[in-house]
């Protein structure tokens, strides 16, 4: 176990490896390089069945690269990924059939209506029409989005596009739901509903992987959290465990995150720099 003062090394608490039979996803030593940049550097973590796993990290930490690797959308340079024993590099189609994905930038066809899009997704995933129809209807109704069912997606607001993306990802009732900043653009009511949906999804034994910058979302939702920085997992555990790593049980997740990613000092420096300007302004007044 490493100390907090050495954040580049991995700190793991509550590791899922002890409970091997319930592990849904295993990532071991994942490495991905873009030209000279090492985007992901030997990343290892696992997700259990029925849990919400949060992947937190600053911009450019390697979260999206990790997600794309899980979906078999990237050629990885090293490591191993296994989703229910399937390798996304070799069995991309089978792995994608188990995953529902909500991307940060909506992956939708602007020139189609939600009705046409859901038809398409149901056809590609070869879903049972009766069951899926009921799921879509319930999801659209709960998200107050039924009225946009026949509008072109390109004409919808960002929030409504996000709702459609969430319905598209959930309509197959996936084993693993991967969400990249899913609550962006949603109003307070819809955010609460989506949170509830995610909790219900995990209660049915399915898992959720949540990648976000929003600490309050992660704090309120995730069973376990992995903090990733410069392509490496620097800490992992439940909120309480992360607090312990942070050195105080009274720290918020944001404070723990800043501490572990060594960003506390830069926040203080930035605030000091700006406060100098404000002080100068006050003196002039």
């Amino acid at each position: 176990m490493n100390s907090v003062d050495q954040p580049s090394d991995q700190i793991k608490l509550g590791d899922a490896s002890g409970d091997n039979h319930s592990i849904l996803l295993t990532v071991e030593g994942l490495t991905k390089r873009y030209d000279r940049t090492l985007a992901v550097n030997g990343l290892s973590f696992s997700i259990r069945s029925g849990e919400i796993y949060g992947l937190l990290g600053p911009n450019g930490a390697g979260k999206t690269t990790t997600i794309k690797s899980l979906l078999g959308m990237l050629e990885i340079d090293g490591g191993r990924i296994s989703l229910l024993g399937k390798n996304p590099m070799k069995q991309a189609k089978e792995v994608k059939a188990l995953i529902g994905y909500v991307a940060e930038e909506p992956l939708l066809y602007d020139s189609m209506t939600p009705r046409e899009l859901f038809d398409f997704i149901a056809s590609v995933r070869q879903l049972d029409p009766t069951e899926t129809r009921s799921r879509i209807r319930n999801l659209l109704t709960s998200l107050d989005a039924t009225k946009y069912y026949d509008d072109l997606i390109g004409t919808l607001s960002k929030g409504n596009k996000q709702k459609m993306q969430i319905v598209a990802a959930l309509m197959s009732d996936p084993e693993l739901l991967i969400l990249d900043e899913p609550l962006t653009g949603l109003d307070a009511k819809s955010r609460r509903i989506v949170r509830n949906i995610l909790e219900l999804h995990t209660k049915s034994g399915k898992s959720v992987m949540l990648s976000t910058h929003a600490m309050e979302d992660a704090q309120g939702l995730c069973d376990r959290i992995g903090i990733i920085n410069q392509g490496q997992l620097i800490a992992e555990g439940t909120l309480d465990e992360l607090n312990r790593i942070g050195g105080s049980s009274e720290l918020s997740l944001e404070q723990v995150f800043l501490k572990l990613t060594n960003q506390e000092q830069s926040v203080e420096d930035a605030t000091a720099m700006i406060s100098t300007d404000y002080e100068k302004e006050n003196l002039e007044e």
Partner: protein
Amino acid sequence: MNLLRMWKFSEKIHTEIFLGSRIASAGNKKDVILEKYKDDISRVKSNSRFNTIFISMILFFPAIIVVTTIGQSLDLLGQIPIEKILFTNSLAISSYYAFNLIFMLLFGLMTLSRLLEGSVFRFIHTLPLSNSEIQILSLLTFIRLMGFQLLIMFAVFPLGVLYITRSVIVFGVVLVLNTGNLILTAYVLIIVVDKMSSLFEQQTSGFNLRSILKYLFLLFYTVAIFSVYFLLQQIVQFFSQIYSLHLVPEYLMTTLNQYLPLVPFPFSTGYILTYFTIGKIPSTSILIGMILGFVLFVLLTWYVVSKGNQILMNIPFKEQKQDVKRDEEGITVELNTRGPLLAYLKVSLITLTRNLPSLLSITFTLLLPLLPLLQGTEQDLYVNLLFYTGFIMFFGDSAMASTEGSLGGLLSSLPFAHRSMYRGKQIVLGSIFFLDFIVLNLVTLGTYLSLARIVVMLMIIITVPAVYLIMKSYLFGKLNDTYTLYEIEDNSGFFKNLILIIPVLIVAGAQYYGFLILDTFFGTLNALGLYVCANIIVILTIEYMIRRMFEN
């Protein structure tokens, strides 16, 4: 904010508009465009300048041609009746103004539509600027967008006339009337673009009058843009033959000279300019006609300018689009599932017809083989279709970019087999080729149609897209020890694209000329038998390769 700072600020809006139009025309490949500009933002400006220079060059040539025509007519003064010189010169100048309007409509439409849409000003509203300052900004942005083209139209023709007449008075008159025409042209452009924007603004998924109008307009626009080169060629021919108009009966010219000056645009100013250039007039009635026509021209310009100004001033205050709220009752959630391949084909059809860049690419592939018809050539158009095979595949493939997106897009996140995508793309590209074949036969009234041609075309439709897709996947799509139809390597380069197209051309050529050779040696029927047998072997080989390359 002073005017100079606003002028500098309008450059930012101008860049935003240009980048916006590039992204809009990129379909789902917008991330590739953004990535390109991210490394070097100055490329946006240099690309924008290149566009401006290209359009300006097109506007430059007609001005020079019409000046040359006027120069020739001045040499003929005293040799042919003044009535004829008045007629031909006025027609030349009027045609020049009409062509200016057409060119501005063609090239300014897409650029201006992004300004008139008003969305670029949404951020500006958050800044501490007054409404009048924002209005001035929109006007300055308009000048930045169209300014250089307008400057060419403003200066080249009057300077040319000054050069051939050496008269400051004539130059002054030309300058004033040219400016009037220029203002009218610019404001007509604003009004037309505004009308077109409102047609495109409300997107609909159904097949109604609005969408029919939209498709008709798009078709017309693509044909027009596509024909600009030939239009220019026609202008050159028109002006070079204008003196053959002297063969027009004199009584007809006299009648036309009486009535045409009354038409405010483009004839009234054309006649007045001619009068000042040649310094003579055949009759008082024509002079009165010119004066009346000019008054009408001024009134028309005043009306168009006031309408256009209302539009320009309202640009920054256009409301943001709102989601259309409907009554929830009456909408039934239903699913019509089908197999993945059929679903892919349906989505392709939807996105190809509703997505503007895709629709333009498809129209382009249909028009490409008809190029020789516009040139008036008598060559075999089937050979031409083969010659453009590579382009048809390339543009057809580009049109489908919005269906499949890039790796990391919706389709690549779904459990859709690469082999199904291959089959789908082959069917779509083959259908485009088939449509080309149909259009060609409709245009030529089936002049070249025969059983042999149908069989050869059928084999080309099957084999050429297959070769294109296999090569594309081999060159660009290797991922995790398998092949995909997504472009994995972004830095593909010119030579890789060349390597992609050459086998396509070879296969298309081999199919066509292979049959011709067989026909020469064995007669048509035997040749057809041999040809089909050979193709069965080719198709089986292709099928074997596809099964090896793409996972199911």
